[in-house]
Each structure stands twice: as C-alpha cells, then as structure tokens.
C-alpha cells in the first residue's frame, strides 16, 4: 500500500503502539515487581513504578537462590538452560541439515519412505509422546542429565523440511559444476551447501535456541535433582511455595534474568535472522 494520508499514518502508528503496549505491559509489571520488597504485591494495590529493592533482590537470586523452594542460585539454572538450549539448537541443526542433504541429493532405496517417516513425526510433538518418551529416557538412565534434557527434543522434521526447501532452490548446475570440479559428496556439502545455507542456519538457530530455552514441561518432568533445574522450570518451582506466600519479587527477578539470553541471541543475530527468512537468491 503506497497511500500516504496522515490519518492512515496516525492509525497505523496507534495500532502498532497499542500492540507494543499489550506485549510490554506484563514485562513492565514483572520488572516493577522485581524491584520491590516481598510485601509490596500482597498489599492489594499493584505498584506501577520501580521500587528500591532492585539490587537486593537481584543479588539474592544471583548469589544464594531461594532456599525455601529448593532451587539453586539463578546462575546454575541459567547454565543448565544454556546447555540445554544450545544442545537442542545445535543438535537439531546438525541432524536436520544432514538428513535434508540425504533426502535431496542421494537416490537410495526407500528414500520416499524415509521422507514420509520424517514427515509423520511432525504429528508427534513432545507433548503427545511424553509418557513413552519419559519411559525410554528413564530406562536409559538419562533422568537428571543433560543428555536426558536435550536428546529427546533434538530430532526435527520442521528443520529438515526447511533445509530441504533451501537445498531445492540451489540450482542443479551448481551441483554439476562441483562434480566436474572434483568435489565428492561430503566436500560439496561442506564447501558449497553449508556456506550457501549460512543465513538459514542462523535464522533457524535463533528460533531453535528460543524453543530450547523455553522448554517447560519436559525439564519439569525429568529433573528431580536441583543440579539440573533449568531456569524456566525453576521459576515454576519457586512460585509453588508450599507453606507460605510465593516470593513474587524474587520470582519476577528470576523471570527478568531468564529473559536476557534469548533477547541477546535475537538482537545479536537479528540481521542474519531476517536475511535467512527472506533471502531467496542463491
């Protein structure tokens, strides 16, 4: 739309500002809550401006944690989350880029079947297969381990399809030129395919990192030792105060800290991310 009428501009901006407010308000409330003392949010009126307890709250969460809810300090949980999110993102990318390579470039027996098997797994997200998956992971002795946190979430049909589409846009002549230039399959993969999918890999990394970071149900199920609590599951445990009021100021401080890594990833990789999603020229 190339119309340029002031009233439309105003309307567009109002809509956008309204949208931003709707998204940002809870975050603001969480931030405000994290800067007050323990009682401020129990008094009936919710403060809308930051209080003076910010340093105290955050240093408590970063240092000691909340002993009553059995959660370790935020640092440990952040590290766990980071390990899980990175393993999931990197693992998913490695597996899906290789399987897409196989499906697109090799004529092996049952290739069609393999493709459809990958397709079918789209219908089986973690939540659907959570009980059998838990059984398998428990039998393999992977409860309370980083492997148990990440491996069941690593296979990804979506990412395989994405890379398949990327590879299909690469002209056949490029493959043939590489063949004539003496590049074998793996050399072609490393020298040509990977560099050409660089932006797509980056875009996918952003999405998958956030997916991994935000995992909630699965870590909650399989971690019983506080050494392996992830931060998202940890927040839930902190809010479950059994014999007292939830310490909302500390919960919110943790929530604010939990938001930082995904924000850093998005901001740092924003340009590659957008390029990877819109770029079509190969």
């Amino acid at each position, binding site marked *: 739309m190339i119309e340029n009428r002031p009233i439309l501009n105003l309307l567009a901006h109002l809509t956008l500002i309204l949208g931003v407010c709707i998204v940002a308000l809870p975050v603001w409330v969480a931030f405000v809550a994290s800067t007050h003392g323990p009682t401020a949010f129990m008094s009936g009126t919710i403060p809308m401006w930051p209080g003076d307890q910010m340093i105290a709250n955050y240093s408590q969460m970063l240092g000691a944690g909340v002993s009553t809810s059995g959660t370790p300090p935020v640092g440990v949980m952040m590290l766990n989350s980071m390990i899980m999110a990175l393993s999931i993102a990197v693992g998913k990318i490695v597996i899906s880029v290789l399987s897409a390579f196989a499906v697109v470039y090799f004529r092996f027996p049952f290739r069609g079947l393999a493709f459809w098997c990958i397709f079918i797994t789209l219908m089986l997200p973690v939540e659907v297969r959570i009980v059998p998956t838990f059984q398998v992971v428990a039998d393999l002795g992977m409860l309370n381990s980083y492997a148990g946190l990440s491996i069941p979430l690593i296979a990804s049909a979506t990412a395989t399809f994405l890379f398949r589409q990327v590879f299909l846009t690469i002209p056949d002549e490029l493959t043939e030129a590489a063949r*004539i230039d*003496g*590049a074998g399959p793996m050399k072609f993969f490393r020298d040509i395919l990977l560099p050409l999918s660089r932006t797509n890999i980056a875009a996918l990394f952003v999405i998958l990192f956030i997916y991994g970071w935000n995992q909630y149900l699965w870590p909650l199920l399989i971690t019983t030792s506080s050494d392996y609590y992830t931060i998202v599951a940890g927040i839930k445990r902190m809010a479950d105060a059994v014999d007292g009021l939830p310490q909302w100021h500390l919960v919110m401080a943790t929530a604010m800290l939990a938001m930082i890594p995904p924000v850093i990833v998005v901001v740092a990789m924003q340009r590659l991310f957008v390029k990877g999603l819109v770029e079509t020229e190969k």
Partner: protein
Amino acid sequence: MASITLNNLGKVYAGGARAVGGVNIDIADGEFLVLVGPSGCGKSTLLRMVAGLESISEGEVRIGDRVVNDVEPADRDIAMVFQNYALYPHMSVRQNLAYGLKNRGTPKAEIERRVGIASDILQIGPFLDRKPRALSGGQRQRVAMGRAIVREPAAFLFDEPLSNLDAKLRVAMRLEIKELQKRLRTTSIYVTHDQLEAMTLADRLVVLNGGRIEQIGTPLEVYRRPASAFVASFIGSPAMNLIDSAAVPHLAGSAHAGQIGIRPEDLTVTPDGPIQMRVLAVEELGAQRLVHGKTGDQRITITMASDADLSDDLRLSYRPNALHLFHRDTGKRLD
C-alpha cells in the same frame, strides 16, 4: 588435448522415452564442434553424456584413447561452461577459479600461476577478489570460462553459454570464445539453439532433430547443401522458403520432388520473372528489407535492398542452381 569419439551413442530414459539415438561423431583434436537444433532435440543430453552428468544407455564415448562411459565427470579431463554460469556465489572469483584445482591437489604456486594466466587472457584481473554477484553478466561469463581454462582440460564443453546475455554482448562474447578457442586449440563441443551462433563459431556443425543427426558438415556445406528440409529451414536467417512442389509445377525438378527450397536471398525481383508474389508484409532491417508474401497458397519471404521499388505484386526470378529439392516423405535432399 584430445580427440573425442561418439560411437553409436544413445540415451533412453527410465520410462522408455528415447532422447538421443545412433549418434556417431568423430571430433578431431583442437576442433570446434557445434551441436545445434531446436529445443528438445537432444543436443544438451548429448553434451551431458560426454560430460558424464548423464548416464550413457547405448554406445560409447571416447576421450583420447580412453572409453569414459563409466568414468566420473571429474576424471574425464573435461571442463564445462554452463548457461547460468554456475559460479559458486559465496566464493570470490579467485576461489571460483581455483576450486577445481584445489580439489585435485594442485600445488598452491601452480594454482596461482594458472589463475594469473587465465585472468590475463580473459581480463578479469581487476575483480579477482569480488563475489560473482558483484559482476555483470558478461563478466560472470568470463569467469565461467576462466574456470574452464585454468583446468587446462582435454576438452571444453559449452552448454548454451551465451543465452543469458543481451544481444549485443552475445555477439561480442561469441567472437571472444572463437578467438580464445583458436588460441588455446582445445577441442570444444558447443551446444546452442541459435543457428547464427552455430554458423559463426563452428569448424563443423552437427544439426540435430528429434534425437537424430540430420547433418554434419562445415557451416558453409550445411548452408549450401542442406541434407534435409529440416536443416534447410533451420540453418540460415531468414529461413529458406520451402514450397510445396505441386503449387509451382513450372519450376525445374518439381515433378519428382515433394518440396522445393529456395533461400530468400536467391530470389530477385525482375519484371519478367517466372514466379508471381503477392506482398503481405514488409519488415525493414535497415540495409535490407524482408518482404513476406504468397505465391499461390504458399508463403514465401524474400530479401531486397531497402531502396528498391516495392509494389503489391512482384515478379521473381531465381538462379537455376539455387533450388534445393527434398523428398516428399522423408524430407531428404534429392541429388
């Protein structure tokens, strides 16, 4: 450098469809051979079989003394230039040129030397460190040729390399390819659907139709004595007039031929010519004009000087030896 022999070469696809059949060509060392034909005639398939990108279902391909039917493309000692250039977009021009050599374990100094020579020949020195996307079409084309040159292969294979260029550049690059090939004396096979490109480049032409060879010969042989009505209509611009002989019973030889061919440039306007032509349309080309018209119910085209007189009805004459007679059923030349 090497000769290339195609011995009864054929391609049948898995579904049973035949793309190419019974092709026999001997390409001498250093020769520039052009495969020309309409789209779908099998010329690209033929080239790709020589390159090793397409499996060979019948016959054999020899490069030098070696049968290469089951040899990988990389080991056939050939280099190929593609229609869309197929440059690696993420590599600089220098890396593009060096990639094939690097994969073969050529020493660094030798790669440097060959890239230097190729970039001098093709004048791509100034943009060796640029990415292909920063180059114009003509420059990309040069890089694609450079990639072939640095390999110093036994043969160059060109797959319609000029089709993506604009008309003016195509003419310039055509000449460059010709000069380059003469200078390097590398055996070359060149595929095109453009008869003008074929005529100007070729030492010898192979005209293909429906997966079969219609004629092999030097450009002038093919132009002067087309072996079939198809070749006659395909080579030469504007195309040869093919007239049903029944419509012109008074022409020499029409009694036993199916079609009579006569090139537009062999028809001249004379007041008492034996052929009458009703003018339907005129195309001005500058120095010349093309006049399209009908004699009886047959369409014909003639060329004439653009300052000659034009009227609605023209009488045409021809030199007797300018007629080409073709068989009614097979379309083959009759003499």
